[in-house]
């Protein structure tokens, strides 16, 4: 069994393939393993997906080196190029480590050869078993020292010339079929070229997307020091198996270009909703900013103090929800709101609590607030206003008065708040989840 495995191992570039597979696994282990169904990754994910594909291909090349070793030269060169391509496409090639494993593995696989198939004196090949220790410096020196005298001995006449011509010539001699040497030289020469080809579209594309590219090119920050992880001779054992289809694809939805977003109406600017519609008890749906949909999860905004400038109660608005029909909400328009006294937004969803705390939260410029319930102390009295409460009618009647004033409310609690504003400031903003 062990003997059979050794036989199998020695008839193919086993160690090179192993390093490549490990490299691909390491790279994948640093990236997205699994994301919940709600976690949608769009454009960013597509770009990352390219990296996943490249890495999977790298792993496949490693496996092909084992199972289809006849094409080892091709697979090994492709592996080196793919390993290089991972650097800019996926977590800096798994933080260098996976890229290095891929390059070293690819180079080792390329350097593998059917030793004894040489044209002369197969018996003189040094014992191949010693080369299986891929990492040992002993091996690195050993064959090189033996190569030279052997070739010299084989062709004593042109020994010196061949020495000068260097290893390229020797590559040619390695393959009596005659095809190997020159082709491989060309292939090696193609590596940097391929790298450039890979780089060129990246350079071009990035410049088009990010305007900052120009400035970053114009002011390259000098003096950057790079500490590169040393190539480990021992391969680590990353956890996931690089089965060629498992990781990425699940989390990448369709690219969904921007054109599909409704009407291109981002930033629900409050301006379009404020004027004109002096709410008559029921505010029309059209009064709302386009595309505003209320969330369906319990959310509460509390604050010690709220300073409301030029408050106007517009009445009740039917705000649509994604499910369960529209919800009746009170709609207020203001010039500005400043919340102090630990303004806190608490959201309960999916069985967890997300809390956003600030020391000061202000909204300025065409502020629109929606809420299902508002309570607090106003002029010394505790008030609670809901869309159906009689008090809301009073507030609406007081509209001309409140519009000219700055109202201060304390112990404010707002249920299901929706807030729109031109500018908003959140001091000591802190979100914690779970």
């Amino acid at each position, binding site marked *: 069994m062990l003997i059979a495995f050794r036989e199998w191992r020695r008839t193919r570039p086993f160690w090179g393939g192993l390093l490549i597979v490990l490299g691909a696994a390491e790279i994948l282990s640093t990236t997205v393993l699994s994301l919940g169904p709600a976690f949608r990754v769009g454009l960013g*994910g597509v770009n990352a997906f*390219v990296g996943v594909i490249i890495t999977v291909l790298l792993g496949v090349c490693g496996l092909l080196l084992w199972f289809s070793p006849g094409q080892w030269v091709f697979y090994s060169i492709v592996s080196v190029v793919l390993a290089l391509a991972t650097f800019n496409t996926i977590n800096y090639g798994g933080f260098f480590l996976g890229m290095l494993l891929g390059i070293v593995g690819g180079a080792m696989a390329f350097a593998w050869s059917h*030793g004894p198939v040489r044209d002369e004196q197969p018996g003189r090949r040094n014992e191949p078993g010693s080369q299986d220790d891929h990492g040992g410096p002993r091996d690195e020196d050993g*064959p090189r020292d033996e190569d030279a005298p052997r070739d010299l001995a084989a062709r004593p006449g042109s020994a010196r010339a061949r020495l000068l011509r260097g290893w390229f010539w020797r590559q040619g001699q390695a393959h009596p079929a005659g095809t190997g040497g020159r082709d491989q030289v060309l292939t090696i020469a193609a590596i940097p070229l391929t790298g450039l080809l890979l780089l060129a579209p990246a350079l071009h594309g*990035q410049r088009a997307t990010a305007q900052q*590219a120009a400035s970053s090119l114009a002011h*390259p920050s000098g003096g950057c020091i790079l500490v590169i992880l040393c190539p480990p001779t021992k391969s680590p054992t990353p956890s996931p198996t690089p089965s060629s289809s498992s990781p990425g694809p699940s989390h990448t939805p369709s690219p969904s270009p921007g054109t599909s977003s409704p009407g291109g109406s981002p930033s629900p600017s409050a301006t379009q909703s404020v004027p004109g519609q002096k709410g008559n008890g029921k505010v029309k749906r059209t009064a709302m900013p386009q595309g505003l949909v209320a969330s369906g999860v319990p959310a509460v905004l509390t604050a010690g103090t709220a300073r409301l400038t030029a408050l106007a109660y517009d009445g009740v608005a039917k705000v649509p929800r994604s499910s369960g029909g529209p919800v009746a909400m009170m709609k207020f328009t203001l010039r500005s709101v400043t919340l102090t006294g630990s303004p806190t937004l608490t959201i309960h969803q999916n069985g967890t609590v997300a809390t956003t705390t600030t020391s000061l939260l202000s909204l300025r410029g065409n502020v629109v607030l929606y809420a299902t319930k508002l309570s607090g102390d106003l002029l010394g009295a505790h008030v609670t206003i809901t869309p159906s409460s009689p008090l809301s009618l009073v507030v609406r009647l007081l509209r001309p008065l409140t519009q000219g004033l700055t109202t201060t409310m304390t112990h404010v609690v707002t249920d299901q708040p929706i807030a729109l504003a031109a500018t*908003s400031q*959140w001091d*000591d903003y802190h979100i914690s989840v779970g």
Partner: protein
Amino acid sequence: MAVSETTTPPSYGRIRWRRFGAVMVPATAAAAVLIALTARGAVAASFSVSGQQFTVTASRLTGTGFEQFGSSYKEPSGKAQPVAVSVIRNATLSNLCQSVKVLGMTLRITAGGGSTPVTASNLVVGATDLSGNATFQNISVGQDAGSLSQVPGETGQAGTFGQQASSVSISGVHQVAWSTTAGTFRLPGFHLQVGGAPC
């Protein structure tokens, strides 16, 4: 190993280390070029990490196209890790510092320390903790996360709480994140340190 073998079948292969070097040299050169270009910010990198907790800090983050919503990230063990997801269409970060634990080592990446900040597009960060001093333009808080429109193609789960703004500026950013994805990441002054202190 295999010291006992004296007669070897002719099909056994071997590794010829000079050819190994013949590939390693140009490949290393190409890698060095890639790294240098990336460190100058001339070439963008793609970044996507999840599955472990890591820290991201920046002295200042500005961005156009901002969304935030809740989600949960499923750990390999099957446990759901709730996160607040922040999505920024185009972000610039000054003095970015990221520290990640990979294979038991702390990797610390810093960039954007000089006059040229880090830029990222389609930055998606899932964090359990996020803090800083923030200013938003054209903000909308409390709308359905499924109806967010500031970053095309990026929305939260319909029915949940969402927030968006046309632009954002946060100073003193500190995040404890579980996942980060960036379509393109330009990291001028890129510096990777192994075994350094976390950010």
